[in-house]
């Protein structure tokens, strides 16, 4: 089952496309990192998946074919929007009560226990909580709905490093609990961030976006296994760029580094060395390639490939 599936999805605001020809399928059972620079279309994609926005082109379904925004979709998705909007004048207890009333399922005991554990007083107004506590409250509300899919849009943007750690710990615990309890498929998580490093440790599925398009999507292990960095003499680089599937090339005076699609078993050209690639390096290479590719109608001196 795919928790989010889009086909040629597009969203236009005025004359600007925030998202274009986006076709991606995020399978269930993963913590998916949706990564890209600011303005890449991450929030737009998540809003479309949550049913907050209507597509200008194409379509999006969630949780195995449910139309985004439909009652069945809303029932299964818990969405924590950017900046975790909440009613500032309502207490944490009221927010629990509110969320319980608005949903078919709500695990009150879990929510109260979690807030006690986090040291968030139930009587405190949501507006008086710190940024970290607000994010924790929003996440607790989302998790207490026992969703099949948890969508978090830039959840860490407002948080300091300790709060980030606590927040991710809560997400991971919830995932583990879901699996342990044998719930239907456990919870799948999709998080967005413009900083890959934040999500690198927790995500096992990566969707890379830039300029309103998906540049790369896949399981992290598969992506790392299918890419290598080749290092060799700069003079001979051009010969390989035609034959190999080069994502991005970086040239120095003497040496060139080519990030290529190749597995460990593929042959390495003579005089070249192959290294495994890190996730950050891989993501940067695709983002750069995407940027150059989008900016350039034809070959340009000094550019990659």
């Amino acid at each position, binding site marked *: *089952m795919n928790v989010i599936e889009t086909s040629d999805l597009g969203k236009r605001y005025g004359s600007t496309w925030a998202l274009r020809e986006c076709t991606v399928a995020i*399978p*269930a*059972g*993963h913590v998916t990192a949706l990564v890209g620079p600011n303005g890449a279309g991450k929030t737009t994609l998540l*809003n479309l998946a*949550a*049913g*907050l*926005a*209507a597509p*200008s082109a194409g379509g999006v379904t969630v949780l*195995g074919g*449910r139309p985004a925004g439909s*009652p*069945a979709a*809303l*029932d*299964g*998705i*818990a*969405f924590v*929007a950017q*900046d975790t*909007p*909440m*009613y*500032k004048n*309502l207490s944490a207890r*009221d927010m629990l*009560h*509110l*969320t319980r*009333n*608005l*949903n*078919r*399922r709500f695990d009150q005991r879990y929510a109260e226990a979690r807030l006690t554990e986090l040291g968030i007083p139930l009587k405190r107004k949501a507006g008086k909580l710190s940024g970290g506590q607000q994010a924790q409250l*929003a996440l607790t509300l989302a998790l207490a*709905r026992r969703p*099949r899919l948890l969508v978090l849009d830039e959840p860490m943007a407002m948080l300091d490093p300790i709060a980030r750690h606590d927040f991710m710990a809560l997400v991971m615990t919830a995932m583990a609990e879901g*699996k342990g309890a044998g719930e*239907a*498929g*456990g919870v*799948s998580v999709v998080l967005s961030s413009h900083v890959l490093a934040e999500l690198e440790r927790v995500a096992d599925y990566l969707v890379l976006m830039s300029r309103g398009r998906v540049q790369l999507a896949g*399981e992290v292990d598969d992506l790392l296994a299918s890419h290598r960095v080749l290092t060799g003499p700069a003079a001979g680089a051009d010969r390989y760029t035609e034959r190999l599937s080069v994502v991005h090339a970086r040239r120095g005076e003497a040496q060139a580094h080519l990030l290529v699609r190749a597995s460990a078993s593929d042959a390495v050209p003579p005089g070249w060395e192959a290294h495994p690639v890190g996730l950050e390096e891989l993501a940067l290479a695709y983002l750069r390639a995407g940027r150059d590719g989008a900016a350039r109608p034809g070959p340009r001196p000094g550019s990659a490939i």
Partner: protein
Amino acid sequence: MTALSVPAGREEDVSLRPVPWQRMGWVTWRQHRATLVSVAVFLGALAVLLYLAGRQLRSAHAAAIAACHTASSLACPPAIVAFNGTNGFLANGFMPQAVPVLIGAFAGAPVLARELETGTFRYAWTQGFGRWRWTLAKLVPLAVALAAAAWVFSLLLNWYYQPYFAAGNQNLSLEEWTPFSPGLFDLRGIGFAAWTLVAFAIGALAGMLIRRVVPAIVATLAAYTALAFAAGGWLRPAYMTPLVTSNLNLPGSAWIISQRWTKGGKFAFTGFPPDSLLNRFCPDGPPGPVGPFGKSKPVSIAECLTPHGYTQWTSYQPASRFWPFQWIEGGWLLALSVLLIAATVWLVRRRAA
């Protein structure tokens, strides 16, 4: 990828039952109780003032009636002046006219505008309840509660203005108003509640369209005012075909729409007579301007023109049409409110963020 996929039997909740409507009861109350309490306090305070003012008005009215029981009583003229001057600022009804639009703008506009302005719609509209149901479950109970509060308040307004409608006031030179007077018509009957309802509905729609609280309130005030003037000026006189009479002694309760004059069966002029005519036939000086709501003054013009072959034709709405007019106005306002609320819900459902 398949390891965690869901067994087929677990997909039964695709055709799930929606969250029951009554769950929104607590939500609406919790989120809007401050508004509802403010409206209650506001109307309550006005009611106390109106009650005290009403007692004054009634005692002044009773005093005038008693003093003028015997004609040429010395106490009569000052008692008349005293009654006509009591709470003069309330007499034309224009101040209470502001109450429905204030309630509607300040209670209606923020319902959606605040959610959109602060971003909380991204919480509320992604819950399992569903956003168009959420909107409907907020707007309808609030609209009903506010209209009901306004209706109760209008009972007091009705009580307050009774002395002005007493038959025979005109003969005593006491203020007598037609129930159709633009300031008074929609303070009584079902008009007050209906206008409050439509103000709330305008506010809700403006909030959805404008998405900011303060501009939405301003837009509501403007749109409501335009609608109220259009209704009072153009629509209301035409709810039913006016009656036409040449009788010069219409009761003060009749609503005079227009007057035209004929001479020898042919049309002469409309409204106020031209100066040339007045100078010729009414040389005792021009009579005062024609009172807008059937005061005694037109009679005096008529008195000097009638002997010269002129006939005054007055088209008017008799006071007996008060309730038909109330139902007509209440009916189209209710229909408009339903339409506006439906449009708001439709926009929420279709809205592209």
